[in-house]
């Protein structure tokens, strides 16, 4: 079973349980649909990173106070600001499918999440290659909403990247991303190659979450 399918199954809440044939068929079908409708656009910029007193960091003209982010960025002198989206086509197909077949809609939703993560991983590898040339190594990406890194920073990140114009990613008044299958994140870069553990979803305090990666 490929990694994408495994991730989709995790998002569907199966945990370690076996998956039935019918669901697997729905998953395969969903990835086919996504291949043709998903837009895949991304953008990033690199800034110098300043560590301030307490749990504050500063980049561009933005100051962020967050204990978990400051910890994630420890030892970094650059920060990559990153935005990515699968575009509105995916939202449209999920909305449409919700009317005709809810099982398929739920599977599409999970597959789109897996698809998006994989796309972000690919983008990140590309950025990592570029930064390695100047002797820097990337940390795991960290998104607003992880730990105490406030979700409101989605707005600041999308403004700094001009995401509405460049990739079509916008933020609603209640800090939600549209298209919904989108990511904003920051990625630290340091000159020392640390063997840092993958810290995305694992940084969350909700230890009993059924989607949690490190317990699966």
């Amino acid at each position, binding site marked *: 079973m490929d990694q994408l399918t495994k991730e989709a199954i995790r998002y*569907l*809440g*199966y945990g370690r*349980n076996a*998956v*039935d044939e*019918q*669901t697997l068929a*729905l998953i395969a079908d969903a990835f086919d649909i996504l291949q043709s409708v998903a*837009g895949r*656009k991304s953008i*990033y*910029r*690199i*800034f*110098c990173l300043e560590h301030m007193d307490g749990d504050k960091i500063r980049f*561009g*003209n*933005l100051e962020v106070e967050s204990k978990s982010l400051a910890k994630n960025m420890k030892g970094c002198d650059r920060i990559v600001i990153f935005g990515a989206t699968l*575009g*509105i*086509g995916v*939202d*449209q197909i*999920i*909305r*449409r499918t*919700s*009317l*005709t*077949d*809810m*099982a398929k*809609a*739920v*599977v599409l*939703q999970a597959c789109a999440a897996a698809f998006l993560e994989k796309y972000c991983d690919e983008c990140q590898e590309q950025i990592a290659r*570029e930064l390695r040339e*100047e002797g820097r190594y990337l940390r795991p990406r960290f998104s607003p909403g992880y730990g105490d890194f406030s*979700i409101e920073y989605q707005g*600041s990140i999308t*403004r*700094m990247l001009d995401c*509405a*114009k460049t*990739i*079509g990613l*916008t933020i*609603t*008044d*209640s*800090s*939600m991303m*549209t*298209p*919904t299958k989108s990511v904003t994140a920051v990625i630290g870069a340091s000159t020392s190659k640390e063997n840092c553990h993958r810290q995305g979803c694992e940084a969350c305090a909700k230890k009993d979450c059924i989607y949690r990666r490190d317990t699966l």
Partner: protein
Amino acid sequence: MILEDLGKKLLFFDGGMGTLLQAKGLKPGELPETWNLNHAEEIIGIHQAYMEVGSHIVLTNTFGANALKFKDDTYPLKDVVNAAVSHVKTASERAGKKVYTALDIGPTGKLLKPMGDLEFEDAYEAFREVMVYGEQAGADLIHIETMSDTYEIKAAVLAAKENTNLPVFVTAIFDERKKLLTGADVAVFVSMLEGLRVDALGINCGLGPVQMKPVLEELFRYSSLPIIVKPNAGLPKQRGNETYYDVEPAEFAQTMREIADMGAAVIGGCCGTTPEHIRSMIQVCEGVKAVPMQKKKDTIVCSYGKAVVFGNGSKIIGERINPTGKKKFKQALKDHDMDYILKEGIMQEEKGAHILDVNVGLPDIDEKEMMMEAITGLQGVTSLPLQIDTVDTAAMEAALRIYNGKPMVNSVSGKQESMDAVFPLIQKYGGVVVGLTLDENGIPETADGRVEIAEKIIVEAAKYGIEKKDLVIDVLAMTISSEPKGAMITLEALKKVRYGLGVHTILGVSNISFGLPMRPIINANFYTMAMYSGLSCGIVNPASEEMMKSYDAYHALMNFDTNCERYIGNYSGRQTKQPAGQTAGKGLMTLQTAIEKGVKEEARLITQELVQTQQPLDIINTQLIPALDYVGKGFEKGTVFLPQLLMSAEAAKTAFAVLKESMTGEESSEDNKEKVVLATVKGDIHDIGKNIVKVLLENYSFDVIDLGKDVPPELIVKRVKEQNVKLVGLSALMTTTVVSMEETIRLLRKEAPDCKVMVGGAVLNQDYADMIGADFYGKDAMQSVYYAQNLLIH
């Protein structure tokens, strides 16, 4: 006036502003328009530099100047816009050059509904305000640019047209697939903007000049209007901390010369271009003669994402969204059951419709409101172009205004009164309008009589600037049961209009057989004859196999179906194949098993078999309910997972639908079902969780009133009171929207104290639910079902 020069001589725009300001110290995320007030000299200096190298049109620094970005009064918007216009004028004096001042209008930075949360009319208002300030301050034209969404463009163009007298230019960002971010291709973009009567259109930003050329070729293919081209200085690249563009002025100028030679009317630069780029461009391009645009004759209707170009065979307009003679549809309209209407739309698209007719007129409903709801809803789930079908001109105008694309409009007639009412709307909003060949004296009995009315309609339309390509003539089909020559007259008139007048044609095909038995036989054969006589589009039922057979055969026979691909795709292997799963019902599987396994088609066939011998209620009690219980318990125990739970639910739904058909009036009555209102709260746009709960509640025979997502508390309370509902389910995904959940509960407590509230969603837990005063927290969808059962049934 710029319109006197436009298209007659090659006009030069200026180049980039944002990238120059960044070089002067503008921070990422800082609003560049604030510089109009606190860095005036820098702004004037940039304008002046462009004027000195020869730009004819200079953009004000107002790209992001709108109330959605300037939320408070730190920088009053009016001052920002006034200063911006005056800086261009000052620069013009200093440079000693006369230029056109173009009020620059960029996107709001928000996505409009239904994809995002910005209301169409709020976008309109944001644009209106700036445009009015701009005209008052002395701008010569409005330049709407860097757009990614046709709907936002429409809001901006209407704001400009309705509130100013300035010429309107529009350019958008196309990507390398030749599409906007929201899916529009060049044909969509052009047909929609020509319909809105802008003065020039084109492409800017996103790409460099070389990458723009394929998009330009298509613009020249479709546009009758002058074309604007403003590329970036190549594609953005990253070097260390900075973004840069690497097409140098000489190279930029050379490609712009090629673009000018292709026939562009207005050229300039966008991100990364500097006065040096523009200087080189003007040096290389000066003297290039303007080429007048050729008038294009294609009849095009479109949605936001799909254009249908007439010709090359006949187009299918789905007729099913229409209450005439349909009891269920009428009930759905009365109940505001939008899902029913949307499903009819999706079904017709899947059956092969190219365009969907939308008629929601009923004597006792507010047609205007219903039409707007249906149009918005349909555009959320299908990208097929729509045909607005109404005799109510208020509903027609409302629909034309909110429609995202260039619609078909059904209809205008040869009556003066009708033409006086409908043509001004088409002139303003754009559209392809159906002209019925009847007038004050009724429907002429001869083909020539109908052709004469068609001619009258064409002449009258021309007075409004509506060209022949935007008319489709309906020569009307009269039933042969009372008009023996009805079909022959119609066919003759079709030929004369299509080939004599050179106008496209349309028919409501099935009228021909009214009053006869086995109508599909007559309809399908008449359909073939009509297509052969020049029917450009037929309003038919795409779910009718006979009609689709006629359609497919005609297109294969007339060589419109290349290599018979469509025909073979639809029919190969049909003879040998048994109608799907005919053996499935023969006792291989019980209904209970079919539902537990979640196999829809089997569930349907087995149920069809069972109703021959058993009572519907017995089937429900002995098979359906045990199956649902089994799956529900499995879900709770963690042996059945969400997709399986839902597949079973869908299979049960199919079985219920079969049973309902066979039930007598009293048994199937919806009246005694318990009602539950479901909504995703205001500000929240995620509704998958709510939709899961809905499917399950419906399975357990609740009547779910689904209010959708982003629902204001007031609307929820209103529906609860109207229908005397005793249970509301609310969903919220994020901490930011739990606030509106709390507000909704507070309002419900006050206005409808008897109503219980259950809540669910990713961010919630029991403590949170208690804190905001909910009666019940549903950890998952089944918990909500059990709660509803305990509360309302047991």
